[in-house]
């Protein structure tokens, strides 16, 4: 079962989750990073046209995070920002609110693995910088099409929203 982390729970720009897993830290890390395709709800949460059969994290900083379709095609979701085996992983999640890949939109997912005895692991997940969605990019893009500077405005808006 998941439970919301009480601190910062009201922050609208992040989602935080904690789960306690009956598995050693090394197993929890491996299942999360190497066997993501075994648990990710691929039937619903994928972006490619093909049926997704796997979700893959390339195990290094800068590695791609992508889905693989049954036709061999791949669709990128983001990339690896921090890779600290067994303890900490930060992924960029460049999926917009319409469930499409958008490399200009970088939200972050940090996952921490903490051993709780030898056979339990506490896994904390934080999905942050959600304010980067807040500016409704497409509408702004239309408005600023002729200006070409909408991205700068959105960046500044994100800053303002974060300080609010």
């Amino acid at each position: 079962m998941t439970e919301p982390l009480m601190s910062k729970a009201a922050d609208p720009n992040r989602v935080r989750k904690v789960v306690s897993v009956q598995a050693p830290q090394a197993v929890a890390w491996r299942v999360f990073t190497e066997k993501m395709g075994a648990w990710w709800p691929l039937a619903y949460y994928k972006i490619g046209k093909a049926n997704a059969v796997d979700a893959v994290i390339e195990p290094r900083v800068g590695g791609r995070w992508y889905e693989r379709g049954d036709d061999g095609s791949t669709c990128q979701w983001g990339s690896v920002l921090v890779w600290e085996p067994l303890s900490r992983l930060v992924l960029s999640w460049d999926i917009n609110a319409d469930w499409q890949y958008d490399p200009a939109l970088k939200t972050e997912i940090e996952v921490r693995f903490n051993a709780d005895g030898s056979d339990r692991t506490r896994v904390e997940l934080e999905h942050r910088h959600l304010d980067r969605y807040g500016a409704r990019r497409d509408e702004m893009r239309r408005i600023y099409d002729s200006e070409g500077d909408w991205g700068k405005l959105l960046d500044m808006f994100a800053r303002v929203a974060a300080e609010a």
Partner: protein
Amino acid sequence: MKLEPGGIRDIEFLVQCLQRLRGGGRSVGEIAEGMEVSRPAVSQHLKILKAARLVTVHAQGTRRVYAVDTRGIESLRKWLDGFWDEALTAFTAAAEREAAREGKQ
């Protein structure tokens, strides 16, 4: 909607309008106070921000009060909250299956 000429200067001006709303809702007059542009120009820029759903406007007595629009972020946050519940529940089951399988070997 066409902006006044000046490109980036206008964008900075839009950001100024947003920054003035950071502490809560304000009327056009309050937003325009101390700015080097006319009140109609401020109104024009608020229209742009409203069209982009960055601000909302509501009546307060005879005043029209502008405020930062947070609804988009909030609904997305709720959606992601449910999504991660589902994904992590599945992850927990998978990790526990794997641990049990290795424990038997």
